C-alpha cells in the first residue's frame, strides 16, 4: 500500500486504535486534515483553542488509560498546546501530539507560523521527534505511542514539516507491530532481594503508613494495592493524584495527605516508623518542609522511574519497577512469610489515629446562611452516588473536591496535580464524556479558572457532551486570596475581579442550560435538576461564601505536624508514643 504522508498519519492512528483526535487545523497541517476528511474511523474533535485540545486528550487518557491524541498546526498552534503538554508531562499522562511544521526547506528562515516546536517542547515532553523523511513517518509515530505508554508514561510530540505530508509523494506504508529502541528499556519487574527486604521491614513495623500516588492508577495497580493494604490492616493515605486507587469509604483510608491533607493522614505520616510509598514522588506539596518530613520512618519506595527515587527524600529501600508486578511479588512474600504484623502495636497505632480522626478536621459551619463550597461537593457526591467522573480546575474548589468527594474507584478524579493548570477542568470534562457518554461527568471549577478555557463550551455543544459544570463562585481567586489572608495581612492584590460575566446568560449564549444558586437549601435540588437533564450541558453557578478557606493547611516551609486547623484540636498530640 502506497500512501502520502497525510494519509500515513491517519492510517497510523487507525492502526493504533485511536478513537478521537483533538485538534485545530492550520496551514501546516492541511494535508493531514484533508486525509482526515476522507475517512470517519478516527473522529476529529474540533476544539476552540489548542490548549483545550491537549486537556481533552489528556483527560481522555486519564479516564481510559489509553493515550490521548492531539493534532495542531505549526507556530501558534504548537505554542498554544504547550501548557497542556506540560500539564500531561507533570502528571505522567500518555499523550501523542502531532504538530505541523513549516516545509523542511524553509525551516530556520523565520517563515510564517514557524517556531522551533521541538526546542520549545523539549523540557516538557518525554521525548520528541522532527520527521525529516516521509519514509520514517510511520515508524516515528509508532515510537511515539510506544514511548508515551510504556515505563513512566508521558507526552511525546512528533513535529511534521508540511512537505512530509505532500499528497503527491507516496511511499510504501507499513505500520510496525513492535518496536525496539536500544536506548530505551524501562524496568518492569522489581529487584527480588529488595522486595524481600521491604516485606521484612514492612511486617516488623509498629506504626506503618502506606502512602500511594498517581503511579498506582497509571500502572493499573489498584487491585493489588487494596489486597496488600487489607491483608496487612495498615492505614493508607493517597496523594492528590492517587485518590481513588484505594476506596475512600473504606475504614483503613485516612484521607489525602499533604498541604491540604487530613489531620490524621499528616499526623500518621509524621509519627510513622515505616512508610511504604507506592507510585508517589514525594512532591513538595506532599512533604512540606523536607527536614521535618517523617523523622522516625524507614522509607520503602516503589517507582517505575529511578530518578523519582531519593530525588527529594532519601529512601531506605528503593524498588524500581512497575507498581503492579512489584505489589504482586510483595503480596506473595507476605503470604509466605512467617512474620506477621504485630497486633498489639497495630491496635495502639489505630487508637492513636482514631484520636486524630476525632479532631474532625474537615468539619465546617453547616449552619451558615451562605452556600459553603464543601456543602456543594458533599451534595454532588450524594446526588451522583459517588460514581461520577469529576474533573477540576485549580484552586480552592480543587481541594474541596479532593477532600469531600469520596472517590472509591481509580480514574474518576481527573485534575492537574503537578502543573496546577487553571483552565484544565472544562476541556477535561469534555474528553472524559466522549470516552464515557453514559456516565455522569462533573467539572468542579471556580469563576476564575473556568474563564481560562470557557470557549470550550462551544465544543461541548458541537459534540453533544452533556457535562455538568459546578462553578463555586466566590468572586475571588480563592486560593490566592487565602494565601494573601494568611501571609500578606489580607492585602488582596489582584485576586478579585471587578467584572464577572453572568454565567447563566453565558451558558445560554453557548446553547446550554444555566442555573444560578444562591441559597444552601437550593443546592441539592439544583444538582438533581442538572443531572436529570441527561442530554444537556448545565452550568451551575453556585454563589458561595466568599471568605471560606481550605483547611487543614500546612503552610509553606512547615512540617506535617504543624497544620493550620479550622478549630483547635482538643486532643493530645505529639510524641507520647512507646
Amino acid at each position, binding site marked *: 500500500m502506497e500512501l502520502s504522508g497525510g494519509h500515513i498519519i491517519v492510517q497510523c492512528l487507525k492502526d493504533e486504535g485511536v478513537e478521537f483526535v483533538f485538534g485545530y487545523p492550520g496551514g501546516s497541517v492541511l494535508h493531514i486534515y484533508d486525509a482526515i476528511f476522507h475517512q470517519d474511523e478516527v473522529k476529529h474533535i474540533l476544539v476552540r483553542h489548542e490548549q483545550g485540545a491537549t486537556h481533552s486528550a489528556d483527560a481522555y487518557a486519564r479516564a481510559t488509560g489509553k493515550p490521548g491524541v492531539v493534532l495542531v498546526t505549526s507556530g501558534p498552534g504548537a505554542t498554544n498546546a504547550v501548557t497542556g503538554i506540560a500539564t500531561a508531562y507533570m502528571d505522567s499522562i500518555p499523550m501523542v501530539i502531532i504538530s505541523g511544521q513549516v516545509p523542511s526547506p524553509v525551516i530556520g528562515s523565520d517563515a510564517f507560523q514557524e517556531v522551533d516546536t*521541538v*526546542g520549545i517542547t*523539549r*523540557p516538557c515532553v*518525554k*521525548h520528541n521527534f*522532527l520527521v525529516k523523511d516521509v519514509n520514517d513517518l510511520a515508524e516515528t509515530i509508532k515510537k511515539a505511542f510506544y*514511548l508515551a505508554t510504556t515505563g513512566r508514561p508521558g507526552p511525546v510530540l512528533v513535529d511534521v514539516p508540511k512537505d512530509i505530508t505532500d499528497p503527491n509523494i507516496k511511499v510504501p506504508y507499513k505500520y510496525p507491530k513492535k518496536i525496539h*529502541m*536500544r*536506548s*530505551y528499556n524501562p524496568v518492569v519487574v522489581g529487584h527480588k532481594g529488595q522486595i524481600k527486604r521491604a516485606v521484612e521491614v514492612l511486617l516488623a513495623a509498629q506504626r506503618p503508613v502506606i502512602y500511594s500516588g498517581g503511579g498506582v492508577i497509571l500502572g493499573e495497580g489498584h487491585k493489588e494495592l487494596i489486597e496488600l493494604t487489607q491483608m496487612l490492616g495498615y492505614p493508607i493515605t493517597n496523594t492528590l493524584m492517587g485518590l481513588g486507587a484505594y476506596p475512600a469509604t473504606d475504614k483503613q483510608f485516612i484521607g489525602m495527605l499533604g498541604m491540604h491533607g487530613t489531620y490524621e493522614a499528616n499526623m500518621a505520616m509524621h509519627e510513622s516508623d515505616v512508610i511504604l510509598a507506592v507510585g508517589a514522588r514525594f512532591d513538595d506539596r506532599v512533604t512540606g518542609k523536607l527536614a521535618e518530613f517523617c523523622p522516625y520512618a524507614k522509607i520503602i519506595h516503589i517507582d517505575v*522511574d*529511578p*530518578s523519582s*527515587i*531519593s*530525588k527529594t527524600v*532519601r529512601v531506605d529501600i528503593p524498588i524500581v519497577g512497575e507498581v503492579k508486578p512489584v505489589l504482586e511479588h510483595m503480596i506473595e512474600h507476605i503470604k509466605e512469610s512467617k512474620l506477621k504484623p504485630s497486633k498489639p502495636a497495630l491496635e495502639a497505632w489505630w487508637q492513636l489515629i482514631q484520636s486524630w480522626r476525632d479532631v474532625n478536621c474537615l468539619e465546617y459551619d453547616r449552619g451558615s446562611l451562605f452556600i459553603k463550597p464543601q456543602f456543594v461537593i458533599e451534595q454532588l457526591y450524594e446526588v451522583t452516588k459517588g460514581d461520577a467522573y469529576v474533573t477540576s480546575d485549580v484552586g480552592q474548589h480543587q481541594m474541596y473536591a479532593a477532600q469531600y468527594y469520596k472517590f472509591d474507584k481509580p480514574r474518576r478524579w481527573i485534575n492537574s496535580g503537578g502543573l496546577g493548570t487553571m483552565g484544565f477542568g472544562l476541556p477535561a470534562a469534555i474528553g472524559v464524556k466522549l470516552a464515557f457518554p453514559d456516565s455522569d461527568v462533573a467539572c468542579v471549577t471556580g469563576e476564575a479558572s473556568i474563564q481560562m478555557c470557557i470557549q470550550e463550551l462551544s465544543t461541548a455543544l458541537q459534540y453533544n457532551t452533556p457535562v455538568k459544570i459546578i462553578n463555586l463562585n466566590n468572586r475571588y481567586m480563592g486560593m490566592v486570596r487565602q494565601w494573601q489572608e494568611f501571609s500578606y495581612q489580607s492585602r488582596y492584590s489582584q485576586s478579585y475581579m471587578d467584572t464577572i460575566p453572568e454565567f447563566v446568560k453565558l451558558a445560554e449564549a453557548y446553547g446550554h442550560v444555566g442555573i444560578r444558586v444562591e441559597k444552601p437549601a437550593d443546592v441539592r435540588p439544583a444538582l438533581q435538576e442538572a443531572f436529570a437533564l441527561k442530554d444537556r450541558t448545565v452550568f451551575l453557578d453556585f454563589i458561595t461564601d466568599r471568605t471560606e478557606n481550605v483547611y487543614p493547611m500546612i503552610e509553606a516551609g512547615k512540617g506535617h505536624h504543624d497544620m493550620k486547623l479550622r478549630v483547635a484540636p482538643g486532643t493530645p498530640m505529639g510524641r507520647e508514643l512507646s
Partner: protein
Amino acid sequence: MRHIISILIENESGALSRVAGLFSARGYNIESLTVAPTEDASLSRLTLVTRGNDEVIEQITKQLNKLVDVVRLIDLADAPHIERELMLVKIKTPLETREEVKRMVDIFRGKIVDATATSFVVEMTGQPSKLDAFIHGFDESSIIEVVRSGPTGISRGEKGLHL
C-alpha cells in the same frame, strides 16, 4: 566533587541539546562538554565534567539515563581512568624569548605546530592541571589565544563503554 560522565548517545540532531537543556533546566552545572561520533556512526560519545555532592551526581546520572537518546553512561570518576585534554596555545615569541618558549614546550612534552617570525602555536595534551601549569608558566601578555577541548576520558582495563 568533580565527576567525568561519559555518555554513549544516539547521533541524532537535537541529542546534544537534550543533554545541555537538562543541565540548565535542573540547575546542574557543566564545567566542560566534548562530543564526537564514535566508530559506529550512529552513536556519539559525549564527555561531560560536572561538580556536585553524591546526591546531585546520582540525580544527574539518573536524569541523563532517562533521556530517550542516551544509550549508556558511566561516571569515570568511580574507577581508575585516563583523562586527557587537548590545548592549542598561540604565544608571542619575540626573538629574545623564542628559545625559552621552545624549552618550556619540551619540558611539557608539547609540540610547536606553527611558527611565524613573532609567534608559535603550541599543541599539548594531558591532564587539565598540566595544561594549566603550562599556561601559568607564561606572562599573561605573551599569550595571544588559548583553545581547550575540555577533558575527555576512558576507563582503565579491559572493560569499556559500548553497546
